[in-house]
């Protein structure tokens, strides 16, 4: 969806510009195929891409802020219910997922590190591991969702969660739960797509010690996914 295209475009911009139709019109810059015609030097261009990516991450933070706001307000209003409801979630699966995401964050950081050291094969392996982690996260999440569906915790007209019948705001907790984890899972999918794209280019030999910005930016996006989860996990599963 548009979020994915925006993310991919932001991450993919710098090399894209290099392949752009009129990048070759300027003789002076022909030495670096990754330099777009409207930038003077590659440092400025990389700086621009990084700045663009961080701005995009800023928008993501604000996007999730809305959900965190919803959580905070309803937690304040129905704190007993929220406390109770968080204990109905599967802590083991949640913890495993946290470990999976943190580890994938590590491997994606290491992958970028490896590329800068010229170890492209190692980097590819690490990226592959990251993507597998993302997949594992989604599968585990899928099991959790399925269990919650069966219990009748899907909010709205489907809500018939017996354990919490009669508790005011029970429905609100699961609304926040499904919306926040759903939006997060959507970001996991997008991040996975970006990482697959980066891995494909890495395998093709596009990146080197000199030029590896997409690996770095794809990694940044993935770290953000991790970051959101770091907050979602205690709020939803623990307290």
């Amino acid at each position: 969806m548009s979020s994915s295209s925006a993310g991919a475009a932001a991450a993919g911009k710098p090399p894209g510009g290099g392949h752009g139709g009129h990048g070759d019109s300027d003789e002076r810059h022909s030495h670096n195929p990754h330099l777009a015609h409207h930038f003077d030097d590659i440092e400025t261009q990389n700086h621009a891409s990084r700045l663009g990516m961080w701005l995009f991450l800023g928008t993501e933070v604000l996007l999730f802020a809305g959900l965190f706001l919803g959580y905070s307000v309803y937690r304040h209003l129905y704190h007993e219910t929220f406390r109770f409801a968080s204990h109905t979630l599967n802590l083991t699966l949640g913890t495993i997922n946290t470990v999976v995401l943190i580890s994938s964050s590590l491997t994606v950081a290491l992958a970028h590190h490896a590329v800068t050291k010229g170890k492209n094969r190692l980097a590819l392996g690490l990226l592959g591991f990251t993507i597998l982690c993302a997949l594992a996260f989604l599968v585990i999440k899928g099991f959790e969702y399925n269990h919650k569906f069966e219990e009748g915790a899907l909010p709205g007209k489907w809500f018939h969660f017996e354990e919490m019948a009669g508790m005011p705001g029970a429905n609100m907790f699961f609304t926040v739960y499904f919306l926040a984890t759903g939006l997060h899972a959507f970001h996991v999918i997008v991040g996975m797509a970006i990482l697959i794209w980066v891995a494909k280019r890495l395998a093709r030999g596009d990146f080197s010690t000199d030029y590896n910005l997409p690996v770095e930016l794809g990694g940044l996006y993935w770290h953000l996914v991790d970051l959101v989860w770091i907050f979602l996990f205690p709020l939803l599963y623990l307290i």
Partner: protein
Amino acid sequence: MSQSASSALAEVPYRAPVYQEINYLNADSGVMSWLKTLDHKRIGIMYLGSVLVAFLLGGIFAMIVRFELSTPEPTFIGANAYNRMFTLHGMVMIFLFMIPAIPGVFGNFVLPLMLGAKDVAFPRLNLLSLYVYWTGAAIVLFGVITGGADSGWTFYAPYSTTTPMTLFPVLLGVFILGFSSILTGLNFIVTIHTLRAPGITWMKMPLFVWALYATSIIQVLATPVIGLTTLLVGIEKVAGFGLFDPGRGGDPVLMQHMFWFYSHPAVYIMVLPAMGVISEAIATFARKNLFGYKMIAYSSLGIAFVGFFAWGHHMFVSGQSAFDGGAFAVVSMLVGVFTAIKVFNWVGTLYRGSIQVTTPFVYVCGFLFFVVFGGMTGIAVATVSLDVHWHDTYFVVAHFHFIMVGAVIMAFLAALHYWFPKMFGKTYHEGWGMVAASFIVLGFNATFIPQFLLGNAGMPRRYYMYPERFTALNVASTAGSTLLAFGFIIILIYLVYALVNGDVAGDNPWDSKGYEWMTSSPPIKENFEEIPNYEQEPHTYREPGEEVEHVVI
């Protein structure tokens, strides 16, 4: 090459303006060359076409609303059709026209020219933002045609989540349009940070660039929140689970908080670029340095920042606590101060200038009056006790139309006329320009001043039928809107004529010192044959080495 760089004084012999034969318009040909272009100027032109179509649609909806209101009883459409019309008017005007209008069109076109850059930082992202805009617009229009939306542009829950109409496509469209806005803002921020030509320091940036910078910050930070809000309302409408259903313990006021967290700063997304346009035009037509450049620049940032703390003044009587109302009210007063600073500085710029009376300048004058009246009535409605009476009445409608139409559209028209030669290398007919400007300024006053009085008299907004006692003022307003519409039609005709058959403008018809005029008009595809020398500040009309009187007031 820049012509005005060395030719300065009056004794330079007159040269007939020449048309830049090779330019960005004819560099490539064919529809696909436009659709696949990465050139910021062509993207700007495509935005211009798109927002004008949106403006036309929004205008038609507005006229339907106004004509329906010419009698207190049903006039020619039904209640539900009327409710759809004002919803469409609001949605189309705000999301499809106002927000992309000045940044998308003129920001895209002149920002790189003003910075001495060959393009914006991410040209592909720029094109993507246009495509996202088209997608979002198409979905909104699809939703409008198939399902209709009758919730008002504010789509307050729980009305929006329970209306029988299929609101979802419209909400989805708004969500997608948000991405277009974010991409534009992100692109501009990065461009301003990284692509300023050598010599253009922060304190030498043209004020339009400062305004766009402040605007972009708001676009990037506020838009995600409205995106999420539309998503939540949409999901609640379709699937029944969202955060705002009172039947399940949800809080509709929370929805209003989230909505206005974006939508109040969004007002500044619309107004700040307009203020930037005025700063540029007023310096050019007064042939004078801007009085208080730094104050104008910083007040743009100030508005962008403080604008984020003021959203609750839309909710004084919504069930929000009185404490929060007071907190938001006092911050709202600060926004007024920043605007006041700008107004004083614009008027100060005219002092001892050499004023060239042109169509864009007439719009600038209109802007000055409207922004003061619109802005101060804004302060008036932010005065909590007064807002109790005015909230959701025509007073508020009139107030924000003074800002939206009176300020933003005046600035849009000023920009359109001011940069028309820059964009197309042609000039329009000044005489017709003046005629149309008179229609618009008069028609505008005739439309919206009665609405202030209607609000005082207590007519709530979004009213299909109204008590008899409001008839006279409504008829006056409808009559005024006809004049206004007539003015826009004249503009459309003479600008289209100018496009086809206008006189050659030359590179710098206004003799402006603005940086964007330091290249040919229309510019070549690469913007500059050679990056100009930016030694002089953008709004300085003193020639290098020339001694002028220095006045401090």
